[in-house]
């Protein structure tokens, strides 16, 4: 297993290189004059532009530029934000924790909804519960998250006043205090994943319950609950895990919108700001971090897969 894991981890290296190149290219080959944007209006003149270009290495061929970019990146230097004149790495470091909390909570919310709902729907197939679960899942999948977010804000935030609707207390505040602020954004962000995973859980559970090994378990006297949780669920969990990994990408994308709606100071909001101001180094940095997070999650999923499924061990 150690060998397999080592190999799996090594395969992420070319992926990461590819990502860094795409992120680099995204900005280098992007239309629009980034240089003039970096300079304030008064200082835009030929001389200044040339100076800055040399300074940034922008007069060199693109592959040299890429090597320079990678060199800096490996040292942890992601450039400076144009808008804030601060190191991008530092700014990301400040915000990444909040995004991390938001995505973790969203995953928890969607798993806590999807798995019980899907399992029960499969166990009580064609019952009222099953149909309701399917309907709820459909709503979760098809409702645009910004719309759901606004509805939640309106209802739980403004009408009932139960939950805070914006911001996240960052100074002098425990995670426990923050949770209240994270509830609505997490539900909003997790809803689509919850819907997808509910339907998937139901489908894979139904399949697992119809498998021969489930019949064997019943034939040895196992109760339906035992068949459900000891035999069917562990088998159904594998495809759920894979889809979870894939969906995590969309979740990160969704974080950009949700953080903006709920004014959560995280990476998404940072990225949104960067785009608004054409702050190229900051865009580059945030996109890179999002991509790396996704790769990391896929890696974790694959490792979990190997731990759970004995059939794919070693090779």
């Amino acid at each position: 297993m150690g060998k397999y894991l080592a190999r799996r981890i090594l395969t992420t290296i070319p992926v990461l290189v590819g990502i860094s190149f795409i992120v680099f290219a995204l900005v280098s080959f992007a239309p629009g004059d980034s240089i003039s944007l970096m300079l304030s209006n008064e200082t835009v003149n030929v001389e200044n532009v040339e100076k800055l270009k040399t300074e940034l290495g922008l007069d060199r061929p693109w592959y040299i530029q890429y090597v320079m970019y990678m060199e800096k990146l490996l040292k942890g230097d992601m450039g400076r934000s144009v808008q804030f004149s601060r190191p991008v790495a530092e700014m990301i470091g400040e915000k990444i924790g909040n995004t991390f909390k938001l995505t973790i909570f969203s995953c928890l919310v969607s798993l806590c909804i999807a798995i019980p709902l899907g399992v029960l729907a499969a166990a009580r197939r064609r019952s009222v519960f099953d149909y309701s679960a399917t309907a709820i899942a459909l709503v979760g999948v098809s409702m645009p998250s910004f719309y759901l977010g606004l509805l939640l804000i309106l209802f739980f935030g403004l009408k009932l006043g139960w939950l805070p609707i914006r911001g996240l207390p960052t100074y002098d505040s425990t995670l426990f205090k923050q949770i209240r602020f994270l509830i609505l954004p997490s539900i909003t962000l997790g809803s689509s994943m919850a819907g997808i995973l509910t339907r998937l859980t139901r489908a894979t559970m139904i399949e697992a319950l119809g498998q021969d090994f489930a019949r064997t378990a019943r034939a040895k006297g196992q109760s339906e609950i035992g068949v459900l949780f000891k035999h069917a669920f562990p088998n159904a969990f594998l495809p759920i895990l894979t889809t979870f990994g894939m969906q995590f990408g969309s979740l990160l994308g969704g974080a950009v919108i949700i953080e903006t709606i709920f004014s959560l100071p995280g990476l998404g909001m940072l990225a949104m700001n960067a785009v608004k101001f054409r702050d190229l180094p900051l865009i580059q940095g945030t996109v890179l971090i999002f991509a790396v997070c996704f790769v990391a999650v896929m890696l974790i999923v694959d490792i979990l897969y190997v731990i759970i499924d004995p059939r794919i061990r070693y090779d």
Partner: protein
Amino acid sequence: MADNLLEVKDLKTYFRTEEGVVKAVDGISFSIGRGKTLGIVGESGCGKSVASLSILRLIPNPPGKIVSGSIVFEGSDLLKKSEKQMRGIRGNEISMIFQEPMTSLNPIMKIGTQISEAILLHQKIGAADARGKAIEMLTRVGIPMPERRMDSYPHQLSGGMRQRVMIAMALSCNSKLLIADEPTTALDVTIQAQIIDLMKKMRSEFGTSIILITHDLGVVAGLADDVVVMYAGKIVEKADVRNIFKDPRHPYTIGLLQSVPRIDQEVERLQAIEGVVPNQREMPSGCAFCPRCVRATKRCKTEAPPLEYFDMERRAVACWNAETEKIAATGNAKNLSMDGEKSK
């Protein structure tokens, strides 16, 4: 009859499908004595698996349902028991092994855990004792290095070994009845012989009664005491194993026997029964075998033959022309007319 372990009477299991009701098992009766082995034979789709799953009440509902009959096991009707009582019987008093050793075991659970599970469900012993018992069972079914095998996963075992594991699991609580649904069908010939030998050994060691389901009369010959031949959800012939082979009465049984490869026959001359099992929508109104039967007469088309008992209730056949069959087969007319009278 009195000390029969299991008596199935007029069992009917139907499936509700989009094309209408499928009468997978349509009024079958049979019994099995203690320590005896009953073979149930018939082509694929004739209802053998449904019949055996009905005994354990494991028919998926919906779409399936046991609509009538009784299944008396050790004096009490299984169809009247609660689900909880049935759970106490499954794997404990009546066990079952299946055709597909590949898929019948949970692929992501260790062999040992799966056997221990069966033991822990029915016996009030601790996990360590259950493990010991599981190792003992693996030893008894002839699995080498049983301690190490306990921690193997199903995919690390060959088909034959997996079937041995299934047998070990099934007998781990000393079941009185083992239902083996095509236990050797998915295995290659040499392994088949080993599994049959193992079942013989287990039968004598544990005194287990066996219902052996197969479409292979060769397997039945080696193991069964009595044989039931099924066709399209019904029993068409019942006899002890000797008579099934020496003196078959139903044209279907005769056809099945002719399609069994024999050492003294060339393989090319092997005869298969022409045609296929009719599906439910086009089930003939008379004898279900009629479209494929070489003996069919006019009556067969319109009237279904009942299962008639003869030879002191020891045998039965459902065919209008079974007597003629007998004349043709042995020419013993006197004997036959006696049987014939009885069956009329």
